[in-house]
């Protein structure tokens, strides 16, 4: 068959946000790719000139999926700008709620957004077809899909106990949290953790948490999957199916990994905030040298050459950057910016977070297989097990500090520069604020998807997704399921990304 070169556009769903992908195809192989943010809301412009505390209400509404993450990043940005002491119990409660949101998100993404593609007609003849349909068929028909809706709602009881609602509760203030801490609330947390862990062991893992956490190498995991009880568990079916359709070698993208670190150490996260003492370390993993360096937000820069925004002279650090739509130039094709770390294209997400936090199993799998669609998704199945243990530990710590305050008041400063970052379920999220005369002078939000789904930078280098599409072979252009897998393995959350762009689809 003669080779045919053409450019096509395609739509993707089950990503949170609006984006198009334009692909140049050489026959069925992707030769080049462009990620195009297609929706603009202008949250940063709405924040300019307001009282800084308004960021606590406005910024979380960038996204209805990770609102706890947005709130935590926003309040941390204000605290660092104000140089404000934080009640240790306030940090503990924030950490606990963020862990609950992460655990919830990992299951919802895996079983409601990623796994439904296993039911794609392209796999109708697969030997495990009936099994994956029974477990994951959308919408809410598969057994595990239904259980996920019920059970993830239960784990949110932790956010409810402290924030009153999910999403969009506003219980964090500079200095701590505004809610009461008492034994009844801690018991609600215990019950939520116990119930969720029991479900996860029974319905997902097919083994105890202890047994799962003992797996530390790629070989351990392979051996675990050999046992019939494990192979037949939901995780076993997920793993067997995913590897059988080649997700291990799919969509590697950039080898460089970045994580800001997460869950501030309650005792040590205090002014002057010169270091980032995190319970889950971050850093930069250089995919070429395999070296790991500490994370510094001063190495972050936004490139605007291909963004449909006014360019005041980029690259710039977020404190100096702007977000103003402008279609005056010809080159730009996306409403998203291109963010780079030490001038490198990096990928963010649970894979990066676990590697940089030193998780042995994830590091072993990365060394054995490299980054891939499968490994990115696997980390979402793996991460909740240890997270539930960490949640238990945090509840115990709160119980030991029950009589202590969860909030310390302080006078806000009228001027300051702040930076707050945490790991949202889909990767590190950073808020940068500049306060002058008691008003917001600049506010920039950089989401994980802004990094991953960025357009080309000022040197013309492709963003991580763009890179991960190149070389992809798409068997059926009317049903590009391979592309769906790669995109969804990033838990694309475009709502927040094109800070302005939000939406739903991926057109190509």
């Amino acid at each position, binding site marked *: 068959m003669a080779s045919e070169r053409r450019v096509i556009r395609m739509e993707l*769903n089950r990503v949170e946000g609006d984006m198009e992908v334009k692909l140049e195809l050489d026959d069925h192989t992707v030769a080049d790719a462009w990620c195009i943010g297609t929706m603009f*809301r202008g949250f940063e412009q*709405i924040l300019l000139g307001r009282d800084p505390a308004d960021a606590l209400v406005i910024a979380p509404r960038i996204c209805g999926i990770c609102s706890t993450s947005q709130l935590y990043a926003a309040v941390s940005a204000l605290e660092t700008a104000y140089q404000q002491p934080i009640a240790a119990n306030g940090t503990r409660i924030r950490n606990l709620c963020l862990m609950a949101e992460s655990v919830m998100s990992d299951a919802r993404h895996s079983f409601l957004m990623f796994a439904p593609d296993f039911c794609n007609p392209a796999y109708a003849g697969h030997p495990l077809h009936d099994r994956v349909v029974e477990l994951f068929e959308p919408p809410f028909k598969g057994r595990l899909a239904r259980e996920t809706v019920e059970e993830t*709602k239960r784990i949110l009881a932790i*956010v409810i106990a402290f924030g009153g609602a999910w999403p969009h509760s506003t*219980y964090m203030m500079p200095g701590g949290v505004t*809610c009461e801490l008492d034994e009844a609330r801690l018991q609600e947390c215990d019950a939520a953790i116990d119930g969720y862990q029991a479900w996860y062991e029974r319905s997902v893992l097919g083994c105890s948490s202890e047994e799962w956490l003992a797996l530390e190498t790629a070989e351990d995991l392979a051996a675990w999957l050999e046992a019939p009880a494990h192979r037949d568990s939901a995780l076993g079916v997920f793993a067997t199916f995913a590897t059988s359709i080649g997700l291990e070698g799919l969509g590697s993208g950039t080898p460089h990994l970045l994580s800001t670190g997460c869950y501030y150490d309650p005792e040590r996260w205090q002014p002057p905030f010169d270091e980032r003492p995190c319970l889950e370390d971050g850093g930069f993993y250089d995919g070429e040298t395999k070296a790991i360096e500490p994370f510094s937000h001063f190495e972050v820069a936004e490139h605007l050459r291909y963004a449909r925004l006014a360019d005041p002279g980029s690259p710039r650090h977020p404190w100096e950057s702007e977000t103003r739509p402008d279609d005056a130039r010809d080159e730009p094709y996306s409403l998203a910016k291109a963010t780079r770390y030490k001038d490198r294209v990096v990928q963010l997400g649970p894979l990066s977070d676990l590697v940089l936090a030193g998780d042995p199993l994830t590091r072993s799998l990365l060394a054995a297989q490299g980054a891939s669609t499968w490994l990115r998704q696997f980390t979402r199945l793996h991460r909740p097990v240890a997270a539930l243990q960490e949640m238990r530990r945090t509840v115990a710590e709160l119980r030991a500090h029950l009589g202590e305050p969860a909030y310390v008041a302080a006078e806000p400063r009228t001027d300051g520069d702040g930076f707050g970052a945490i790991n949202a379920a889909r990767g590190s999220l950073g808020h940068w604020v500049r306060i002058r005369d008691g008003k917001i002078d600049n506010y920039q939000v950089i989401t994980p998807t802004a990094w991953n789904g960025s357009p080309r930078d000022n040197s013309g280098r492709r963003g991580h997704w763009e890179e991960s599409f190149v070389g992809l072979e798409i068997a059926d252009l009317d049903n590009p399921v391979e592309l769906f897998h790669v995109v969804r393995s990033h838990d694309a959350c475009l709502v927040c990304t094109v800070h302005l762009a939000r939406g739903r689809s991926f057109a190509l």
Partner: protein
Amino acid sequence: MAILGAEGRGKPGHTLPAFLEEHDARLLWHPSLSLESPREAAAIIDRVIAGEQALTMLCVEGSIIHGPNGTGRFDVFEGRPKRDIVAALCGQAEYVLAMGSCASFGGIPAAPPNPSESTGLQYTNNQPGGLLAPEWRSAAGLPVINLSACPVDATTMIETMSAVLEGRDLGLDKVGRPAMQKPCLSDPGEKRCRTVDKVGYACYGCIGPKFPLSKALFKHRVAAPASA
């Protein structure tokens, strides 16, 4: 995705799967939850607009984006402003539900300086008229049903959808909010949230279904800040 959300300590709440089953309702398409790709969704939309596929309830989430300069190009689907697609679907639906403050009234995106030129479906902030004119009515003869709040909680969404499917009176108030709508703060019988009075925030629709507890802390900000 607030329909998968949770509210109220100790309350089990409703779930979307149970609702669909109970009412034998068919979810034509949801951007996050459906198997069909957006390309197939485009075909479903075309069939609805052509009158070949009945549409009982249209649920719209998010503000309607008209920018830049009234073109709608800040939010497109397959090259068409989504605003135009939503307007065409509204013309076919028996009932149109605005899910949340943004779809109802424009919400935070419509807050000054409204950089995306957002409106709600039938209101812009507190003024009648948005994507649709104030006198517009759906096929069943109702204005847009506004489930304001940010987010509107799952219980209100499901109770309102159930009432629509069961043909019950929705008890719409003068801005189109159904009786199932709860006050966004926990004051019984108070529909207007009074957020501004309490915490000094302009809420542009609503800042949440429940305000967390120590409201006194927020008052510090409005009055003199407390010293440490």
